[in-house]
């Protein structure tokens, strides 16, 4: 079966010729209908930029190349007007901070309803009926009251529910969720994830979940793609990745989870931070922070090599021609 979304060799850069920064390089992945893909990585690894590129919502000083095919439509070659008919209709997006992502001056009902007015051409009373149904569906009590409320009267969790209602208003084929639970309380996080799972199953909607939290990935994703410094480091289905992570970066991410710290011991961290695009090192980009680094890692960039069924890993450790396998620690 053909995937719903195919991204091939996606490259994203910012700035003009003199100050060009390649933020995302040769990222390829696909998502089937109804499937959920997690994109994982630290801040600054290019995961949000990738999702904005799929929506074609990056600013004017960005350059995007490669191919993004949704349902056999090549999104990068569409005009802005054609793209507008896809946004909100075929693809929808929810953002990290529901506090700032809703317009403070418009009622909840209006903000959800306008998506349907734009794409489905429904009469007004029909729109209102649909909005009320949506509000109930995302678990908002007293929908008819909330319909007339402004965002500031709602809690963070409620606002994220409103964002979800808005995103699924036109039953999109693909939902991009950019850290949808990061700004919420832990108890609310689980509720929101459950809600997303429920809707995904009911609508047979594909989901791309962008997160830095492997717990979220374990909860909702079928497959995972780990990104670091604008490159894909490892992809695998969620069980394989969580049980037998291959890439040292993935392992380090897993070690940094609070759950994996033994009692009374300090939480593990990955030393250093993600380099900014102008400071991407030669060779493997993770090498300077890697605890299994070898001489070759500083010289040559490893390729993203297939490793088992549906998995791939970008690391010299798994290279067949073991020419220089002495670990440099």
């Amino acid at each position, binding site marked *: 079966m053909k995937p719903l979304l195919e991204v091939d060799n996606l490259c994203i850069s910012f700035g003009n010729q003199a100050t060009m920064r390649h933020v995302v390089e040769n990222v390829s992945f696909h998502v089937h209908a109804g499937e959920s893909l997690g994109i994982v990585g630290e801040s600054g690894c290019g995961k949000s930029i990738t999702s904005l590129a799929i*929506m074609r*919502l990056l600013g004017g000083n960005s350059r995007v190349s490669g191919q993004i095919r949704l349902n056999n439509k090549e999104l990068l070659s569409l005009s802005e007007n054609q*793209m*507008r*008919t*896809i*946004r*909100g*209709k075929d693809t*929808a*997006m929810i*953002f990290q*901070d529901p506090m*700032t*992502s*809703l*317009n*403070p*001056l*418009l009622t909840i009902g209006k903000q959800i309803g*306008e*998506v349907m007015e*734009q*794409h489905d051409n429904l009469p007004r009373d029909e729109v209102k009926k649909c909005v009320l149904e949506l509000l109930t569906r995302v678990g908002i009590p007293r929908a008819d009251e909330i319909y007339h409320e*402004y965002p*500031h*009267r709602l809690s963070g969790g409620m606002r994220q529910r409103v*964002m979800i209602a*808005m995103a699924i208003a036109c039953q999109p084929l693909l939902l991009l969720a950019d850290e949808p639970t990061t700004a919420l309380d832990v108890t609310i996080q689980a509720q929101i994830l459950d809600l997303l799972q429920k809707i995904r199953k009911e609508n047979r909607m594909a989901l791309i979940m962008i997160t830095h939290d492997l717990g979220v990935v374990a909860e909702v994703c079928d497959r995972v793609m780990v990104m670091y410094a604008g490159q894909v480091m490892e992809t695998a289905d969620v069980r394989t990745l969580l049980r037998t992570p291959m890439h040292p970066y993935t392992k380090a991410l897993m070690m940094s989870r609070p759950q994996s710290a033994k009692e009374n011991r300090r939480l593990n961290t990955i030393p250093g931070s993600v380099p900014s695009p102008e400071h991407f090192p030669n060779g493997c980009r993770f090498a300077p922070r890697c605890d299994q680094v070898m001489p070759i890692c500083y010289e040559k960039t490893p390729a993203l090599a297939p490793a088992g069924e549906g998995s791939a890993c970008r690391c010299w450790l798994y290279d067949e021609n073991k020419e220089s396998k002495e670990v440099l620690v």
Partner: protein
Amino acid sequence: MKTYILQRIFSGMIVMLGLSIFSFALLHLIPGDPAQLMLGGKATAEQIANLREQLGLNKPLPSQYFQYIQGLLTGDLGDSYKTGRPVLYELLERFPATAKLAFTGTIIAIALGIPLGIIAARHKGGKLDRLLLAIATVGFSLPTFWCGLLVIMVFAVKLGWFPIAGGTGWRDLILPAFTLGVLQSTIIIRLTRSTMVEVLGNEYIRTARAKGLNESIIMVRHAFRNVMVPVVTVLGLQIASLLGGAIITEQVFNWPGIGTLSIEAISNRDFPIIQGSIMLIGFVYVIVNLIVDLLYMLIDPRIQYSSKEAA
């Protein structure tokens, strides 16, 4: 909401009370005797004493102030030293001309400033934006009197399209209102531009784009209302200041408004008129601020909410 309005009215009354003390004190803070001033240098001591008696100037200050307040509340602001006519009458005679100029000028400022500001914001960093900002900066820096004289010279003297100065008809209004409006619009352009740039960078605008809305809906429904709060604030201040008399513009165009009246009163040391103008200007500010506060509530539901919480 009712509580909020009552609160605002109450605080407006406090402001007016403070202003009345200030304007009352003015007469007693200036050097020299008001009766002496009124009668001029050649008056006899007896005449001065009579006038002091008549004006109540020999009574203790608190009772004089009480009398003054009583007068204010009943609309008696005293009589002009110069014309001898009631101050209220003088003010009301001049106010319509000032109001006409202020409102026309402000309408021109809005009609120019808001659209141009939005255009500049949408082309942020581009040639059009830089051109508009340059024009706005130059306009902002030009002295009003110079612009006024230039406009008179070109459109009234050289081209003869409009009367030079002195009338109060609609044809006479065009040049001063135009000068005032264009100069005021420069502030509105800059403010609208910078607020719009800020608003367009907000995440809810990105959400609106992600919903696939038309650009016009995003601009009007999502961005413009958010731009309105600071713009309404500045417009309120501008219109209040103009209603107190656009002093320089009125002088240059010989427009018989409150501004001209105030200047005349100051040069004639006509204290009741000066006091009356102060009270009128204060009153206008209080009323305009009240209206601006009410407009805030219409524009931004969060403001209504926080006041409810406070009350």
